């Protein structure tokens, strides 16, 4: 468990946050370590066969949008 000591937080709080982050990593690693469903692997393998032409202005793909407002980039319609 890594404890970040870079700020002035109470050490107890840093320990609690480290515990939380440690467990976040554990559940993420557990989920990421699971076997992938075959249909997802198959989907990627066969992507070129799909008739998905380049879309124009598809919501959610503009990652370089400015973030000048609360949640502006969540979805652009």
């Amino acid at each position, binding site marked *: 468990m890594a404890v970040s000591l870079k700020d002035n937080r109470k050490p107890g709080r840093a320990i609690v946050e480290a515990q939380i982050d440690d467990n976040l990593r554990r559940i993420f690693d557990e989920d990421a370590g699971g076997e992938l469903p075959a249909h997802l692997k198959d989907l990627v393998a066969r992507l070129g066969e799909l008739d998905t032409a380049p879309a124009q202005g*598809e919501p959610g793909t503009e990652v370089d949008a400015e973030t000048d407002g609360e949640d502006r980039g969540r979805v652009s319609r």
Partner: protein
Amino acid sequence: MMIDNPDLTAAAAQVDPPVATSAKAKPAPGTVNTTDPESAARVKAELMDNLKVLRAFAISLTRNGSAADDLVQDTVLKAWSNLHKFEPGTNMRAWLFTILRNTFYSNRRKAAREVSDSEGDMAGRLATKPAHDGHLNLRDFRTAFAQLPDEQREVLMLVGAMGHAYDEAAKMCGVRIGTIKSRLSRGRERLAELMQLDADEALELTDRATSAVLSEQGFKSV
């Protein structure tokens, strides 16, 4: 190719707007050209490499394996059909995460009237106060995590679990860095509350090894 999820037919239609076939221009120089077999193979390999973390991120958002798989499927299809917007050499994982979370929130708005009972069901189900050995009961932790608002779970995963910097997470989520910090802080506080983790008690009960590490790094006993 057959797609199991009937919703994806609509999703694919949504991705492909009503433009004339002639408007499907060749990719501009510097963009990914999936008609080139080598480029297509490279992109597919990168997509495949990211599939497991995409799915883990999707699970953290949807709290449901089946819904997560649908979300990953939608994300992959959207990413493939929008590859002309991806700049080679940049972080594809971050781009995929952005598409995934935007799709999630878009779907959530569409299904706004569907009330999930999962949060209410999970409330109060934590077993016992966790042992203070740094290893919380993972099942209880998942239950507590699932009770948090989507926006807090998202940031906790991006920053707390995956270690993304605040600015990276802010870009992926389309919000300011301050918003990321705020959501992270509130999420951690809520998790600590749900898991009955007390800062003072944690320090008192920290084992000798941890205390030794703290001491070595400059902390004095309180």
